[in-house]
């Protein structure tokens, strides 16, 4: 290298320049170098190595630290043996037990003893004549010789070689793997490649035992359900007594004549068969008592279900819309809408499903079922027909704020699907009761029908219902037993199939 790079700006300068021609930074130290450190610019530019600071010393150039005794003179020859002993003992002021220090200070005492070691270990041992190098960090202990930090110790070197750009080491991008690793990698690659390839589906059996079981259950259920309807035979007695249904029956019996009753039709058409069969006897009982009915629903299909129920299921009572009952339609908003209706029913649903003003106001007479009704507490009873646990819970929760007061005499009763019964029973068993009576499923409806003595729909369905439940339970029981016993029977006997017994 012919130029000297400036440690500050990095630009090239002549080798003998003291300051940078471009940035005026000093290129040589301010202090006078030692005589043995006089270096030329060429030496300065050379890359420093640890050997520059700690040059290797040839074994034959070790300083001879042995004490050379002067030749015995004539006047000193009286004690030649003492001087020799003193030289062998070392300095006279050291005690005997520190003699090892002087032994260790001898140049030849530093050599380790030649021990009997293994040949492979002997080959790994560095040669004794190689002088160990000191760590590179010791360079920091030398004073800085160039740059603005010149003269300071313990700083990073600002010499040109410290900032010289070096050629980037190029590493090979070829992965060195063993043959075993290559085999595993190939296997993994093959697995991943075949994973995305669609495999042909195994051929399905055209006739499987599952089809027979499925169709068998369907046919048996159909036969059992249709048999009571086709033959007209009724053998099963109605259930005797249910406390919740009896309580509802008592409440209906206590209603005054022409009492306003609010009925919520909150079930889906899919569950209408069960809920309507259970509710038929209760609403039949209400109609016999001459109650005025007000119908609402928080389900979009509820108003049509209510209309259908009044026109078809209860057709025998000749209840007329607008005279004996009023259908207020759909309450949108779920729980919020229900809360709005409970808080102000007149503002929430002012018209009937036909568009007729329903409520009694200052300027008009209301429809007969809503005469004298201004708030939710004015209804004598609130009956909810429900098939969903969440909907049932929403009715209970939103009504409790108004019906939970001590002076309120309105009772909340429910006709539910059988699946809702466990969720509603806690409200019935609560103290005070939050639901005052329950008819759950067709069984509850049949129990209610037995109490009123009017079998109605529950009586017609009771045999088919019971037969279907019995066959379903037996099918499940038989399927479970076959699933448990068949593997035990088909299991090979111990020893069977073993070669050589």
């Amino acid at each position, binding site marked *: 290298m012919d130029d000297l790079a400036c440690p500050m700006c990095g630009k090239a300068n002549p080798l003998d320049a003291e300051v940078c021609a471009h940035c005026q930074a000093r290129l040589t130290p301010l202090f006078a170098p030692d005589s043995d450190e006089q270096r030329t610019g060429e030496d300065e530019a050379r890359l420093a190595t640890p050997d520059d600071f700690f040059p290797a010393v040839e074994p034959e150039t070790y300083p001879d630290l042995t004490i050379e005794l002067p030749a015995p003179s004539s006047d000193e020859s009286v004690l030649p043996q003492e001087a020799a002993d003193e030289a062998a003992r070392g300095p006279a002021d050291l005690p005997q037990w520190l003699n090892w220090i002087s032994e260790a200070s001898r140049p030849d005492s530093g050599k380790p003893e030649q021990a009997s070691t293994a040949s492979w270990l002997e080959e790994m041992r560095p040669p004794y004549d190689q002088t160990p190098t000191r760590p590179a960090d010791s360079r920091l202990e030398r004073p800085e010789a160039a740059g603005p930090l010149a003269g300071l110790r313990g700083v990073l070197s600002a010499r040109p070689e410290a900032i010289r750009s070096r050629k980037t080491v190029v590493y090979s991008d070829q992965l060195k793997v063993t043959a075993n690793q290559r085999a595993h990698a190939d296997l993994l690659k093959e697995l991943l490649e075949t994973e995305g390839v669609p495999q042909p589906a195994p051929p399905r059996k055209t006739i499987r035992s599952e089809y027979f079981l499925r169709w068998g259950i*369907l046919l048996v*259920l159909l036969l059992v359900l249709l048999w009571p309807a086709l033959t007209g035979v009724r053998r*099963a007695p109605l259930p005797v007594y249910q406390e919740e249904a009896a309580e509802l029956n008592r409440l209906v019996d206590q209603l005054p004549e022409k009492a306003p009753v609010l009925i919520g039709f909150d079930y889906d058409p*899919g569950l209408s068969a069960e809920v309507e069969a259970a509710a038929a006897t209760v609403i039949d009982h209400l109609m016999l008592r001459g109650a005025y009915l007000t119908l609402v629903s928080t389900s979009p*299909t509820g108003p*049509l279900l209510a209309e259908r129920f009044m026109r078809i299921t209860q057709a025998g009572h000749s209840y007329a819309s607008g005279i004996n009952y009023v259908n207020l339609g759909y309450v*949108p908003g779920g729980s919020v809408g229900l809360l709005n209706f409970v808080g102000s029913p007149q503002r929430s649903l002012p018209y009937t499903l036909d568009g007729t003003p329903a409520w009694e106001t200052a300027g008009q007479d209301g429809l007969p079922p809503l005469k004298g009704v201004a708030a939710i507490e004015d209804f004598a009873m609130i009956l909810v027909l429900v098939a969903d646990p969440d909907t049932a819970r929403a009715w209970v929760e939103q009504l409790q704020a108004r019906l939970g007061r001590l002076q309120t005499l309105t009772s909340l009763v429910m006709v539910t699907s059988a699946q809702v019964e466990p969720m509603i029973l806690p409200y019935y068993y609560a103290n005070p009761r939050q639901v005052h009576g329950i008819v759950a499923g067709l069984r509850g409806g049949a129990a209610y029908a037995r109490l009123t003595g009017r079998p109605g729909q529950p009586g017609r369905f009771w045999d088919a219902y*019971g037969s279907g439940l019995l066959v379903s*339970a037996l099918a499940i029981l038989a399927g479970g037993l076959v699933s448990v016993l068949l593997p035990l029977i088909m299991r090979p006997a111990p020893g069977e199939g073993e070669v050589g017994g």
Partner: protein
Amino acid sequence: MKNPLLTAIAMAVGIVVLAGYFLAVDMLLTLRAILIEWATILVAVALIAGVINLFAVHWRKVTRGSAGGASGSTQIYSLVLVTGLSATLIVGGWLGPTHPYALWIFNNIQLPVETSLMAILAVVLVYAGARLIQRRLNLLTVVFLLTAVVVLLVSGPLFGFDLPGLAELRAWIGRVPAAAGARGVILGVALGIVTTGLRLLAGVDRPYEG
């Protein structure tokens, strides 16, 4: 906080409605009633918007066909939906929901379809119950099936084969394990509602910000 105004409005509305349950102040009750009424109207409008969106999506499938990403069968289903929705809307809107034609559509189309689905579900459940042990045999499966069998047997008549203690066992199942589970569910739901309400009132949850 993306929009502090929205959060402030939501928190204020929630606090007013909640306070209306505890404080019998006329102004507060009136304000609460108005807010709840607005919410009800909004839900009703959302229902109408949902119906319009449903109609638009299927109308697009019918008119664009395969270009709109619909296969042949999907196009037919969409056509049935658009036709049924239009017919019901015209009959119910023009003649009224209690007109015999509107009730005929409901009684002879919607009701049988949904009831048939429930009937199929009953058959499928019986079949699944019969094969359940074959698929998974463990203690809980056995307990589940035995409970189902007992409840099924006692929910209907036994035609003179009443077994002693079976009715009492069914009553015990309904009043103790089933009611205990239901109470647990109700309590859990109540705690969840309280937590969610408090988070909304505190502005921690802000679903209205999208």
